[in-house]
Structures are given as structure tokens and as C-alpha cells.
């Protein structure tokens, strides 16, 4: 009996001596403080420390400062802690997934889901701005999943469509190209040719259809780089040549699906200098290779650039950090 009592007493003593349940260790970087120097702003500091001037809002949120306010020079304030980095990474991935979904035509083909992804993205960004990094990360992860689903749904719906082109040139020659779908039956002089996805045919006036040919592969864009910001009125387009191509068609559109085109240009070389009179804004470009029979191949994926031409004649081309690849028109 006695040894049992002694044992219990020892256990009680050990338990009592054990430290209380540990509080989350203080985030060392949260504890980190900083202060502004001279006429430095929070935005300057945020850009210096986090490469993002918008992180100034997070510093304000942590320190309960009014929106847009600036602490006095020398006044110490706390900086975001370690929790920021994973949240910002998740936000970046979510942003990229939303952009990819957009480029693959999700706004058009998976409207509801894409809209939810955009709303979720906005909520994640807001959470980050108020330095609620846990919510930001969770919301960003949800956004990423939603955007991936929207992209998948958009792609599935897009490929179930019939997409084909018909053209007539000055000599009266008809060309039919089938990009997607169940196929197209071409008839001339009582002869039929059935084209499936990726096939094309030429019909000269008064003749039966030529043999069915395969569409050329899309050219691979090189310049401008993905998501470039162009502060110039001369846009240099450059791409990898396609074997068998006689010329190329370059389409500039206001949307990533190529549905709001503003320029269509033709060239025999794999480069084109566009003296742009386009208004400032976001544009997307696509390329198609045309074979010696005049059959126009599939379009390359969308590549975005932003035109900011009216800035005192400055000419700079800044590669962006956006994603490349998107819906072909």
C-alpha cells in the first residue's frame, strides 16, 4: 500500500513540475520591428523588404494603423511574421491558376465556376491585406482548386464544340479547316470529302475537292514574353518557324479566347513589327501557320501583353511574371 501511495505522489509531483501546455512560440519575425527613415514611406519599405509595395497595407493592419497612414520617422512598428510567406505563396499559385483558367476560356465555357474562383481570389487577397494569413492561405487554396476545376470544365466544354473555318479567296477557291468537333462534310461537283479534327481541304472553282490535308501545328511564340508590359508603340513579335509554313497569321485580341480581335496581320517571316495605334490595355496574341495550299493551321495558345504606350516616349519592354499558354481562338 505504501509504495503505491509513494508512486502516486511522485507522479503528482512530476505532473505539477511539468511546464504548462506550451503557448505557440512567438514568431521571431513578428517580433521584428522596423521604423521609417527620413521621408521613406511604408510602401517604400514594403517594396524593399517584400518586393511588394502593397504589403504596406499588411503592416498597417498588424499595427492597427489607419488605411493610407504613415508612421512617423523613427517610430517602431511590427513587421509581418513567418506566417506571411506560405500565405503569399498560396496566393501566387491561386492567382496563376485563375489566370490559366482564364486563358483556357473558362470565363466563356465555365462561367459560374470561374466567377466563383474570381470571388474566392478576391477574398483571399483581402485576407492577406488585413494580415490574416491563415484565412488568406485557406482561401487561396480553395481558389486554386476552384480555378483548376473551372479550367477543366472549360476545356471539356470547349472541345465538345464544333469549330471550323471556311474561306473564299479572290479566285473563288474555297478552303475549309476543322479545328474541333464532329467534322465537316465538304461537297463540290458531286464529290464529298469528310474532314475530321485537324484536317483541311481546298476546293478550286469548278473542281472536285483536293485531297484532305493535315493542318499545320501552331507556331511557338517567343516575343513579346508572356504577360509583358510594353511601354512602346512598336511591338516586335517573334516566333519559331513551322516546317511547311508559307506564311503566318498573327491575331491580336482583347480577350484570351480571341473573340474580340483588333488586328489580323499576315507575314511570310517569323517576325513582325507592329506600329501600334492600339489604345492602352491588355491584349492577347495568337499565331497560325498557313501552308503552301493556303490552309490555315490551328492557333497557338493565347499570350498576353499590356500596352502602356503613352509615357513620355519611353521605350521599355518588361517581361511579366504571368503565365503563358491559353485558349486558342
Amino acid at each position, binding site marked *: 500500500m505504501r509504495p503505491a501511495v509513494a508512486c502516486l505522489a511522485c507522479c503528482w509531483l512530476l505532473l505539477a513540475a511539468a511546464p504548462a501546455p506550451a503557448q505557440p512560440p512567438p514568431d521571431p519575425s513578428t517580433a521584428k520591428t522596423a521604423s521609417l527613415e527620413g521621408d521613406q514611406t511604408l510602401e517604400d519599405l514594403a517594396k524593399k523588404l517584400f518586393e511588394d509595395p502593397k504589403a504596406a497595407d499588411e503592416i498597417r493592419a498588424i499595427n492597427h494603423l489607419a488605411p493610407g497612414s504613415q508612421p512617423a520617422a523613427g517610430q517602431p512598428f511590427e513587421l509581418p511574421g513567418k506566417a506571411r510567406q506560405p500565405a503569399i505563396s498560396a496566393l501566387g499559385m491561386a492567382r496563376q491558376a485563375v489566370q490559366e483558367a482564364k486563358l483556357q476560356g473558362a470565363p466563356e465555357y465555365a462561367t459560374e465556376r470561374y466567377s466563383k474562383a474570381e470571388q474566392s481570389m478576391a477574398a483571399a487577397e483581402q485576407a492577406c491585406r488585413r494580415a490574416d494569413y491563415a484565412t488568406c492561405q485557406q482561401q487561396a487554396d480553395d481558389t486554386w482548386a476552384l480555378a483548376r476545376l473551372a479550367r477543366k470544365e472549360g476545356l471539356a466544354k470547349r472541345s*465538345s*464544340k*464544333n*469549330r*471550323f*473555318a*471556311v*474561306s*473564299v479567296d*479572290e479566285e*473563288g*477557291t*474555297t478552303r*475549309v479547316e476543322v479545328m474541333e*468537333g*464532329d*467534322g*465537316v*462534310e*465538304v*461537297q*463540290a461537283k458531286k464529290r464529298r470529302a*469528310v474532314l475530321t479534327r485537324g484536317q483541311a481541304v481546298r*476546293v*478550286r*472553282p*469548278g*473542281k472536285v*475537292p483536293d485531297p484532305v490535308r493535315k493542318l499545320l501545328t501552331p507556331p511557338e511564340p517567343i516575343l513579346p514574353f508572356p504577360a509583358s508590359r510594353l511601354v512602346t508603340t512598336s511591338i516586335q513579335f517573334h516566333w519559331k518557324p513551322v516546317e511547311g509554313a508559307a506564311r503566318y497569321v498573327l491575331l491580336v485580341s482583347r480577350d484570351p479566347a480571341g*473573340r*474580340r*480581335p*483588333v*488586328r*489580323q496581320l499576315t507575314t511570310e517571316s517569323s517576325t513582325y513589327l507592329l506600329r501600334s495605334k492600339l489604345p492602352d490595355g491588355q491584349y492577347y496574341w495568337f499565331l497560325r501557320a498557313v501552308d503552301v495550299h493556303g490552309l*490555315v493551321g490551328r492557333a497557338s495558345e493565347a499570350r498576353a501583353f499590356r500596352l502602356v504606350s503613352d509615357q513620355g516616349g519611353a521605350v521599355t519592354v518588361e517581361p511579366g511574371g504571368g503565365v503563358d499558354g491559353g485558349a486558342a*481562338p
Partner: protein
Amino acid sequence: MRAGYHEAVKSLIPFALAAAWLVACSSPAPEHQPPDAAQLDPIQRMASLTQLEGEVRVKRAGAPEWLAASEGMQLAINDKVRTLRNSFATIRFEEGGVMRLEPESLVAVTDLAVERRNQVRRSTFTLMQGRVEAELDALTQEGSEFKIKTPSAQAAVVRREVSFQ
């Protein structure tokens, strides 16, 4: 004489009734009448112009002049649409689907109808010049068709075979 006449008339009554019954039976019932011609006539569908860029013109059926196109303008059979240099237009169909006109194209609406009985849709356009790109849902209903005619050929979308398992 008069009594004999009455007897003869009486004996004919069953025959007269039978004849009347036969005539009534042989006349078609109202529900078996041939359908009204209006029910067979296809209804004309409309399409509308959208996403206009640059100079786009429309010529109404029978009208001599070309009008400047405007967003949402309705198109009917025998209307024509022309895009000029650096200009684009999209024809949007009621049921979904679009046809985009590239620069310097000329297209006429040749047929745009839906049959009342079975909702079969027929769409035919005549491309006289330029290039168009169509994007349509699959044609699943028998009899539905989408065609683009040119001076030298005709292109028709292949109908999707739907199988039920």
C-alpha cells in the same frame, strides 16, 4: 294506293338510317384533319450581330443600301454582312453558337429556320468573300443542319451520333 305508298316509305327507313350512319362514319373526325399549313411552316429564326470592331456594314434583304452595323442588330434571311479592312464581326445564334467574320468578308444569311413540330434547326450561310470561323454546339437532332455555301463548294457540319445504352 296511299296506304301502299306509306308502307313502301316505312320499309325504306332502315336503309336511309344505315346510309346516314355510313356517311357519318366515313367522314373524317376533326382530330384526323390534315394539320394546318401554318404548323408545318418553319419559323424563321433570328441571329444578331455582336463584338463589332472597325467598319461593319449590313444590307437588308431587298434594300439597295448598306447600313452601318450596330451591336445587337438582328439578322434575317437574305440579309448580308460585310466587314471592311481591319474589321471584325460576330453573328450570334439564338440557340448559342457563333460565326466570326474576319476582315474583308461578305456573308449572306441564306436560311435560318426552326420547324415547329420537331424543333429541327436549319442554318445556311453563303460566304462570297473572306473567311469565317464557326463555333457551334454539336448537332444531335436528326434533320438539323448547319451549312456554309461558297461559290465553289458547300461545307456542312457532321451530325453527332447519339447512342443510348
